[in-house]
């Protein structure tokens, strides 16, 4: 599986993503600087977490308008796979590749902790290694993860099975207390209509070794290998 990781000024989970992709695919991803206007042919483009352009104005807003992002959009329009983790998810909504917007957490505070996620749809290139309805643990670390979409969009996302992950409690129930940021319908991650684009706030790349305290994030990467090879 060939991959590329886009690096914006002040992306800061780029190395984590590169390390994870290399470990799992066995190949070093291409590292693409935001001013590059060429992305080699790859199976997957990853937009990593961080604070691109300081998260100033709106999270992901400036990165979404960076020259390289046009190339990411072209890749996605051709049906290429794209993942956006955390800040990457914010960039994807800002470009319009995914619907909705990520607003300031309801608590107004940055939140870093392990959350429980339910795999809502395992029939995607990013989730097929999980059981349907499986509850996994993955860390979140963000200030703006409060997913908002208007009622119609939300309805369509639910109807079309485009919710990839939802915040749940230990028993797999969608509760208010299990929601770390106030996102509508406890949404943690969504996919595009063609299922080739995924955006999610939690960080699967931070939970892939026992030393991290667990390996629940591995399934995410294994899914892509299943789907692509």
């Amino acid at each position, binding site marked *: 599986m060939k991959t590329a990781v886009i690096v914006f000024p002040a992306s800061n989970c780029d190395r984590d993503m590169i390390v994870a992709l290399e470990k799992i695919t066995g190949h070093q991803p291409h590292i693409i600087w935001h001013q590059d206007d060429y992305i080699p042919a790859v199976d997957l483009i990853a937009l990593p977490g961080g604070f691109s352009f300081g998260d100033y*104005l*709106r999270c992901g*807003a*400036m990165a979404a*308008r960076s020259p390289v992002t046009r190339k990411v959009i072209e890749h996605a329009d051709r049906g290429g796979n794209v993942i956006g983790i955390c800040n990457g998810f914010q960039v994807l*909504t*800002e470009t*319009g590749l995914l*619907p*909705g*917007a990520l*607003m*300031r*957490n*309801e608590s*107004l505070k940055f939140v870093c902790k392990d959350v429980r996620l339910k795999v809502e749809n395992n029939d995607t290139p990013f989730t097929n290694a999980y059981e349907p309805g499986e509850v996994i643990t993955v860390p979140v670390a963000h200030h703006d993860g*409060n997913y*908002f979409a*208007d009622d119609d969009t939300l309805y369509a996302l639910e109807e079309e099975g485009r919710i990839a992950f939802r915040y749940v409690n230990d028993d797999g129930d969608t509760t208010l207390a299990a929601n770390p940021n*106030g996102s509508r319908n406890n949404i943690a991650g969504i996919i595009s209509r063609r299922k080739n684009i995924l955006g999610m706030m939690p960080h699967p790349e931070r939970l892939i070794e026992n030393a991290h305290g667990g390996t629940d994030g591995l399934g995410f990467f294994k899914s892509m290998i299943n789907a692509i090879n």
Partner: protein
Amino acid sequence: MKARVHITLKNGVLDPQGKAIKHALFALGFDGVNDVRQGKYIELDLAESDPDNTQAVVEEMCKKLLSNTVIENYAIEIV
């Protein structure tokens, strides 16, 4: 010329900051607050000297960068 841009959340979009401010004001004893909405205020100092052109340019800036039209409205004032 100078332009002042107000960026506000669309009706129906929940406003966590506004809600928190309302809550905090209440906690401080300000109890007659029906609603609070928080937006952004951007002041631009532009080389352009024609008001119409300025309006058009700032309009484009708002569409291309300054606002996220999925959730926000903008209003421009040229001064």
